[in-house]
């Protein structure tokens, strides 16, 4: 190889390296921007999916029992009464109470569900079987363990039991899918018993409660729901 060729080759390589050094940061910025845009669009889609349930001011305010963790007895649920305008439609009503449950109590230490978990959908079959579809955060953000997972599921079932008598049993889905466990322990392949009594319209609707909006802890801790499994 003549010196002239060597010079041309080395020059070509230097130009290539310089071009790469200039282009790679630009490429990296573009990839980051594309990823950010994709993330934003996913977030937007999620927000659209989970639009807060419209509250009709015409709905009667009802004393609603929500089950959160007790601040006095370890790993126990306690009902908290809050006045909410609730729909008479069992599906809308279920969404309203579950969204309030997900929003959490005043004391964040007493929440039973992860703050970033969302209720994506709620269905109720004619036989009283309900399906609640939560976002993945319910499974990924919940503290792993039997006691924490059971508290989470029991807070959901007990809240539905107290406020939506039409729901007889509950199937929990994560992002539209059946999963084996919530976070490695609690079995989600079956359904959980919610109401064992025959379905009746919520009596509390007839007597409108004063619109105080205050949270009132009840005295008795909530009993735990009994899961059942598919036949």
């Amino acid at each position: 190889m003549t010196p002239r060729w060597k010079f041309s080759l080395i020059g070509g390589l230097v130009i290539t390296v310089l071009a790469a050094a200039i282009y790679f940061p630009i490429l990296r910025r573009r990839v980051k921007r594309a990823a950010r845009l994709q993330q934003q669009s996913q977030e937007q889609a999620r927000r659209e999916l989970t639009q807060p349930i419209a509250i009709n001011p015409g709905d009667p305010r009802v004393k609603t029992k929500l089950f959160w963790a007790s601040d006095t007895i370890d790993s126990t649920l306690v009902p908290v009464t809050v006045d909410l305008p609730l729909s008479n439609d069992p599906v809308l009503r279920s969404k309203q109470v579950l969204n309030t449950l997900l929003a959490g109590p005043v004391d964040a230490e007493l929440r039973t569900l992860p703050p970033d978990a969302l209720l994506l959908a709620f269905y109720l079959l004619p036989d009283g079987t309900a399906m609640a579809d939560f976002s993945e955060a319910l499974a990924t953000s919940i503290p792993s363990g039997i006691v924490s997972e059971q508290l989470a599921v029991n807070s959901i079932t007990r809240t539905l039991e107290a406020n939506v008598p039409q729901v007889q049993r509950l199937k929990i889905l994560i992002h539209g899918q059946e999963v084996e466990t919530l976070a490695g322990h609690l079995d989600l392949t079956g359904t959980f018993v919610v109401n064992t009594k025959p379905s009746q319209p919520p009596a509390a609707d007839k007597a409108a409660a004063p619109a105080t909006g205050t949270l009132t802890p009840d005295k008795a801790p909530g009993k735990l729901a009994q899961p059942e499994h598919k036949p």
Partner: protein
Amino acid sequence: MVSPFPAPSQIQQPAAGATPSASPSATSSQGGVSGSVASPFGAQAQQAGLSIVVLDPAHGGTDPGARGTGGIRESEIVLDFVIQVRRALELQGFQVVQTRQGNENPSFDDRSATANAQRGAVFVSLHISSTGLPGTVRVYVNSDLPPVADSNGLIPWDRAQAPFLGLSKTFGDLVQGFLTQRFKGSPDAAQTASVRQLRTTAAPAIAVEISSVTVEDRADLDRMAPGVADAVARGAAAFKPSYVVANSPGALP
């Protein structure tokens, strides 16, 4: 379905770490065992009682389980606990089988298969929680399951625990009682929960959950291990007279 006669590949032998001196032999007077190794063909059909404890260190492999802020990983700690529980059980005359020896993560069904292949066994799954009052221990048994229609002698795999729920509760209450004596603030009786690992286990089965990975110093958890080990071993020994072992592994009690 869980067959009363599982395939030979399903049969788990006691772990290699058990030395003959520490492990009960077939004639061990301490354990009262008269024929201790599960046979795939049920040839050694006579069993006097409970002889094997299957220990299940939860999680493992890519699943660390609960994680504490101090880098505590449930999957590692339960393995350390199992070493001590195993030693205490062997001193009581039991054979011990583990669902995992190291940092593997067998599936729920694989872990149940280990237990279901034994005859005269109980199953103990060990966990560390993320929450709960530190220094307490809870025992769980599976929630009610639909009853098994025993028309063909086979137990449905997905409800294998159903015929054993009563025995599991008795075993769980005994272990919880011994734990509560040691760890104040623990419940007085075993709790019920829909624990996936227990549902497919065809034997008296409990989950023991220790609180919790939130302790500031891992030594706080390590100090609990001897007490947990002693309570499980004493619970198993106390349960032994009430467990009439079926002739075949996985058969109805």
